[in-house]
């Protein structure tokens, strides 16, 4: 995207002084990024509503635009025109900051994601670290939301949300260490080019942990305790209305789109695919669509876990799995790399073979260890009236 920056800079340079041209080019690029995130959120909202409609045996939104595609815009417009309520006892400055603090990490996250070959807003050499850093700002935003709205349901949601987000940060980071080890670089562009074999196959365990952790950080079922509609009304964003609610929703759905993009980049080979020099963006979008579909699929299917069960899952299940993955990757990289420290495609396939086996057995082992022993009921054929009950009453009461 630096090419685009230069084009805008040169064009503006014909009229403006150099420093203003830099500003103009920078602001234009930022406009593109912000709109990309918001459009991504809108497309994801539409996709989720349509697909969940299908999962429910409903039609889903179909009134406004082809296949109801403009529904998110209609929703957004409606929310913008709604009254913007701030509770009387709310902590006003914090309350107003919440939607911004929610949306900001999502937009920042997209800045380092390569959409196609050489097409990223910034090719940071610490891209992976950067993604982890900006996503953890969401924790703060959720707590700000819960605390400032002065609502007990919001407080519950915030307390739960912070606990879940901080717990899941740990396995997620450790699972990403494996990716960094194999790539030898933290730049997301390098991560994509290192995937001659998608890391989904090379380290399925890391993918599993990262996917579960991301679901938890995005507050999606079965980990959606922070919002938990049936329990906490709307969780931490109970008191938000109008345009603030719209922004929080945009952050939430944009977050899913951005996380799907990060997952695609880290584990599914990013923009690589046939004719990726020209069609890279298409492969990227297709893969993002598939990951987003899996998120929606899980959301439409599973009930919610309880908070303590979610914490147990993070610390007793995902953390050991991510450590096993890290340990295996360290050993494999140590023994397989050549003298200059590079792994060939053949090496990656060998790692894939070992790690797929390792993933299946580790998930089965730890799964059986944390599994609570529950047994379903059986309908017995002899289920009738036991003889412990009192004798039947003869009639429907006496007529006096």
């Amino acid at each position, binding site marked *: 995207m630096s090419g685009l920056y230069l084009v805008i800079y040169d064009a503006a340079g014909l009229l403006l002084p150099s420093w203003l041209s830099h500003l103009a080019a920078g602001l234009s690029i930022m406009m593109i990024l912000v709109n990309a995130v918001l459009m991504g959120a809108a497309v994801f909202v539409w996709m989720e509503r349509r697909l*969940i409609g299908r*999962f*429910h*045996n*409903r039609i889903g939104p179909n009134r406004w635009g082809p296949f109801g595609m403009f529904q998110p815009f209609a929703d957004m417009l409606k929310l913008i025109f709604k009254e913007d309520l701030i509770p009387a006892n709310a902590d006003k400055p914090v309350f107003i900051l919440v939607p911004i603090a929610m949306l900001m990490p999502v937009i920042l996250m997209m800045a380092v994601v390569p959409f196609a070959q050489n097409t990223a807003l910034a090719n940071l050499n610490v891209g992976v670290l950067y993604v982890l850093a900006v996503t953890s700002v969401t924790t703060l935003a959720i707590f700000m939301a819960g605390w400032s709205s002065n609502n*007990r*349901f919001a407080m*519950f949601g915030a307390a739960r949300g912070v606990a879940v987000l901080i717990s899941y940060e740990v396995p997620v980071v450790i699972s990403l260490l494996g990716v960094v080890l194999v790539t030898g670089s933290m730049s997301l562009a390098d991560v994509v080019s290192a995937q001659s074999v998608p890391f989904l196959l090379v380290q399925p365990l890391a993918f599993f942990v990262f996917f579960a952790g991301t679901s938890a950080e995005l507050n999606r*079922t*079965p980990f*959606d*305790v922070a919002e*938990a*509609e*049936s*329990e*906490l*009304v709307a969780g931490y964003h109970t008191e938000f209305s109008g345009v603030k609610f719209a922004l929080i929703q945009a952050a939430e759905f944009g977050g899913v789109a951005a996380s799907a993009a990060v997952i695609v980049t880290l584990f599914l080979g990013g923009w690589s695919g046939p004719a990726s020099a020209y069609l890279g963006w298409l492969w990227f979008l297709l893969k993002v669509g598939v990951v987003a579909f899996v998120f929606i699929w899980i*959301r*439409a*299917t*599973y*009930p*919610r*876990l*309880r*908070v*303590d*069960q979610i914490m147990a899952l993070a610390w007793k299940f995902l953390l050991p799995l991510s450590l096993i993955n890290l340990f295996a990757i360290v050993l494999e990289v140590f023994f397989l790399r050549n003298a200059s420290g590079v792994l060939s495609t053949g090496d990656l396939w060998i790692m894939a073979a070992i790690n797929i086996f390792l993933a299946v057995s580790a998930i089965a082992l730890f799964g059986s260890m944390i*599994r*609570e022993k*529950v047994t*379903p*009921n059986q*309908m017995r054929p002899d*289920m*009738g*009236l*036991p003889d*412990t*009950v009192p004798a*039947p*009453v*003869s*009639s*429907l*009461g*006496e*007529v*006096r």
Partner: protein
Amino acid sequence: MPIKTEPMTVNVGPQHPSTHGVFRLRITFDGEEIVEVEPVFGYLHRGTEKLAEERNYVQIVTLTDRLDYVSSMINNQAYCLAVEKLLGVEPPPRAKYMRTLAAELQRVASHLMGIGFFLQDLGTLGTPLMYCFRIREKILDLFEMLCGARITVSYMRPGGVLDDAPVEFWPALDAFLAEFPSEFGEIEQLVVENEIVMIRTRGVSTLPIDVAVNGSVSGPVLRASGLAWDWRKMDPYDAYADVEFDVPVAAGGDNYDRFWVRIQEIHQSIRIVHQCVQQIEPGPVRLDLPLVLRPKPGAEAYGRVEASKGELGFYLVSDGGVSPYRCKIRSPSLINLTVTEHLLVGWKLADMIVTLGSMDINMGEVDR
């Protein structure tokens, strides 16, 4: 350093997504744990019992529709049984079968709502609920054929039912019964042995059998605690003496058992409907009673049925006039709520919502 904590009192309801109507619980939480519960109700009080004293015996049928508005047929049945007892009359056999059939279809619809909202409370995003509604819609279509209404049916009358089923009802019922196993099987496959449903509900909010009996709890909640108490077996009314069915009983009395008992009862209800279709014979469906009924002065009667939520009873006293002197309604939801405190204290907020869902209360019936 010990952190100072203090309990927090929260009003869950009457405006809350999962209180099953306008039910309010004042709950004191210690963290996420419940230390004190105070149920508050009356937000839907419409004075049904008093209104019944102003209407004649046939008009009251429409009031009963609005008690437990997801199982109107069974409410009609309980009331009509009480009036028939009061008058000392008995409906013709075909009417008895029609009532049994309609009541069992209604029980399926009501239990489907119970299961669907129970799973909704567990945090599923409406998928099982919509599957349940898909079946319930078909049952409501059948009711529409019977009486023109879907929810507030008023199908039954003292001395029989409103009218015989139209000719197209029977093929439609056969089609419904043919589709039912596969459609309900989808729900069962999705949720009944689902790992998350199991770990969320197994052993949670257990109701020991002695507490249940002391609290006069009835219906699936009682049967989930281990007592096979079902008025359809204990004191068969209408055509229940002539049909075969089992009474599903669970042992644990936890949330999963209450959910499971409802699932099994749906199977048994469908079994009863099949038998009714086979056994029903042509004949009159309504006794030729006068339009305005006047029971003997001083006559009293208690008609009860096994409703979808438990024992539903109508106690009628006549003073010889056109309307009852007193109409007392024993509604199962209200009585089942008496064990709320026992079920909820000590459990977490998330369990509380699921427990309320597993009780399957209906505020129209609680507040009357």
